[in-house]
């Protein structure tokens, strides 16, 4: 079975802190994605990566950056956390974008105070 893990299930940070969310997949998938999910808004794509050191902006990249130094690991970085970044963050991976099923991690619920 594909396994996508995220470093934390729950995280509490203060405004202005730099926050790192880590995601690891064990199926040698080329593509990895970061979403945020907010009540009433569904899932929104922040960034995705189709190869090591490659990244593309999703629909809401402002305030975020990403890093993909190794194929299995995709990090989401909040350079200076703000309260409007309080959300559930979901990581996903797949072999080919779109048609191929995306496999999701359990999510990280981030609270920024």
């Amino acid at each position: 079975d594909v396994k996508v893990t995220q470093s934390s299930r729950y995280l509490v940070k203060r405004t202005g802190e730099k926050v790192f969310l880590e995601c690891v997949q064990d199926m040698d998938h080329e593509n990895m994605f970061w979403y945020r999910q907010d009540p009433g808004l569904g899932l929104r794509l922040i960034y995705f990566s189709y190869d090591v050191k490659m990244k593309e902006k999703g629909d809401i990249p402002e305030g975020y950056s990403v890093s993909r130094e190794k194929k299995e690991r995709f990090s989401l970085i909040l350079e200076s956390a703000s309260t409007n970044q309080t959300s559930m963050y979901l990581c996903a991976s797949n072999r080919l974008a779109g048609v191929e099923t995306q496999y999701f991690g359990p999510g990280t619920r981030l609270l920024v105070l």
Partner: protein
Amino acid sequence: LAKTTQPISMDSYEGQEVNITCSHNNIATNDYITWYQQFPSQGPRFIIQGYKTKVTNEVASLFIPADRKSSTLSLPRVSLSDTAVYYCLVGGDKIIFGKGTRLHILP
């Protein structure tokens, strides 16, 4: 990118068949239709995917008419554990999650 429209919420009872319909009027020729299920505090989980006609697996069936402008996810004999949010997605190279349908199964 094809936009999808599905009901915000639905209620049903245990043992009944549930059908959730999704509209995607501007679906492109190479787009597939995929449904995901999400339980609270978990990531979405793949249910079924199709291109046209009917697809069935151990969990659900997916009905797609010839014009492909809509699709219907059918869950046979639902149980309380099927209470979840169901997302309809359409895409090829890129997919977009909508707001989903919150399905509530009653005893």
